[in-house]
């Protein structure tokens, strides 16, 4: 807990030890001003959320009368309306399937590829690593048109597989970046011992490296899952079949923000976020459990 050690001398304390030159009033004014600024700023950042939740629970007529008013009566009707309007059940399942499959492929391919990239130090492996890292700055828009032609030729338009392939290719660079730097920080001794004991590359990877990758995997997947779940572009372009569309595409194509009421808009926005939040609450427990289990073993 280095933070606890570092903080006392920094925080402006009213009972500061005597003998230290302390420009008290001015500094305290500055500190107070900072606190006010911090509170106001944070409020500004959460206010749109609170407003969204409050408005979602009001009737359209009530909101029209006074947009900022206190809700007179609460209703869940907006949510049920949005639920059916954006085909929520179906589109959530689609998004879940796409996000899940992409995450599995990114983890498996990414960790496998990072092991040789971290351990083999030769010209070709550095070049391959660089090629992967290049991918972290390529926007999907740069490849969207040729990718569309390719998907059409491969008969992968309108298929989950096509979208999963695209996400895997798009986020493999991120996984390679995370895993390679992490594996490089693992001492090589354990692997050498295993190799003397007759472990091949396969056994070494699965019994020694893979279990160690758990914490960095959860960090990486949090990032990737957020990106994939929230993405609009890829499913908008590559999934035309209404039955296969994701939550974001359905929300985007069925709700026009310029003509509809906030009481339709906001519940749709909240429903789009909900599953992700639930998954994270669940995942966070898993992550903590996995990490503490590892700590007990070692």
């Amino acid at each position, binding site marked *: 807990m280095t933070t606890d050690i570092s903080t006392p001398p920094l925080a402006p304390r009213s009972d500061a030890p005597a003998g230290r030159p302390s420009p008290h009033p001015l500094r305290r004014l500055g500190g107070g001003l900072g606190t006010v600024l911090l509170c106001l700023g944070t409020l500004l950042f959460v206010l749109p959320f609170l407003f969204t939740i409050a408005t979602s629970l009001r009737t359209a007529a009530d909101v029209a009368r006074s947009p900022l008013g206190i809700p007179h009566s609460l209703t869940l009707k907006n949510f049920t309306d949005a639920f059916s309007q954006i085909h929520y059940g179906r589109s959530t399942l689609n998004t879940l399937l796409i996000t899940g499959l992409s995450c599995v492929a990114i983890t498996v391919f990414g960790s496998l590829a990072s092991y040789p990239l971290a351990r083999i130090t030769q010209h070709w492996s550095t070049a391959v690593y660089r090629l*992967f890292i290049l991918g972290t700055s390529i926007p999907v828009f*740069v490849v969207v*048109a040729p990718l569309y032609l390719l998907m059409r030729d491969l008969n992968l338009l309108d298929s989950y597989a096509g979208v999963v392939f695209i996400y895997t290719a798009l986020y*493999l660079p991120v996984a390679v970046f995370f895993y390679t730097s992490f594996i490089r920080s693992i001492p090589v001794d354990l692997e050498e011992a295993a190799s003397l004991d007759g472990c091949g590359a396969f056994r070494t990877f699965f019994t020694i490296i893979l279990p160690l990758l758990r914490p960095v995997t959860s960090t990486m997947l949090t990032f990737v899952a957020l990106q994939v779940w929230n993405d609009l572009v890829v499913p908008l372009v590559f999934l035309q079949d209404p039955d296969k569309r994701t939550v974001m595409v359905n929300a985007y194509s069925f709700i026009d923000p310029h003509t509809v009421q906030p009481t339709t808009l906001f519940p749709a926005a909240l429903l789009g976020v909900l599953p992700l939040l639930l998954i994270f609450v669940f995942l966070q427990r898993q992550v903590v459990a996995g990490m503490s289990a590892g700590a007990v073993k070692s």
Partner: protein
Amino acid sequence: MFHRRRATMAAFLLPAIVVYGMFTLYPLVRGVYLSMTDSLGGPIANFVGTDQYRAMADDPKVTAALWHTVLYAAVVVVTQNGLGLLFASLLFRRPKVRKGLSVVLLTPALISPVMAAFIWSYLFAPTGGINALLDAVGLHSLEHVWLGDTSTALYSVAAVNIWMFTGYSCAIFLASYMSMPTELLEAAALDGASGWRRFASIEWPLLAPALTVNVTLSLIGSLKVFEFPLVLTNGGPAGATDTLTLLVYRNVFGGGKFAYGVALSVVLLVTVVVLSSATSSLLRLRERRI
């Protein structure tokens, strides 16, 4: 024995290389070729050299979109990182509220750009949240048609981007703050350095790597922005929020100007690569000098 082991290890690369090569590198190369044809997306494509690029130079929409994209990125990078740094340094000095507030600031980054745009499209509406708020506190004169006025539309869209990701910048700066050597900060406190002086001469140099990461990430992110202008304004009013990505999308999938759209995407790639590598190498150079 070790040689064979290394060959097996190298084979681990295969699945990743196949997927990445096929669905990123190959389309990238093919895109550059397609941008020099008159392709409509069908099987027939004639090589036309730099025709598409020359047409672009005469297209005021393209120059405007390029300018909007760069301006948007500049506004987002400066404001988002400035606010993120301000919040991080304020939070660092207040350990009791640090963790809680930094999580609160991060929540906008959890939702999708589409959903953020939904929320803000109502807040920005003529009879929406912001104007109602200004009305309630008596500032009628500041009420505005935020997304409908060519002079404010682009900045309003940028504000949503900043709202979403300031917490993210703040988290990165805060992590850098937490890893600062305690002795150095203590020594500074003992020497009586406080407030602005401590920030300028000790904290700011130590934050250099975090600044590099933050600026690079937010620059790449804002140059490829798509959902915010699409949902909030769809490029309007009068093209005031048209970005390169919107033009690529419209030309490739709507306008029947496939090759032109592809050429625009090459321009986007060059913009992103040139600006981001120039910025990050400048910032790295600065890190070494400090």
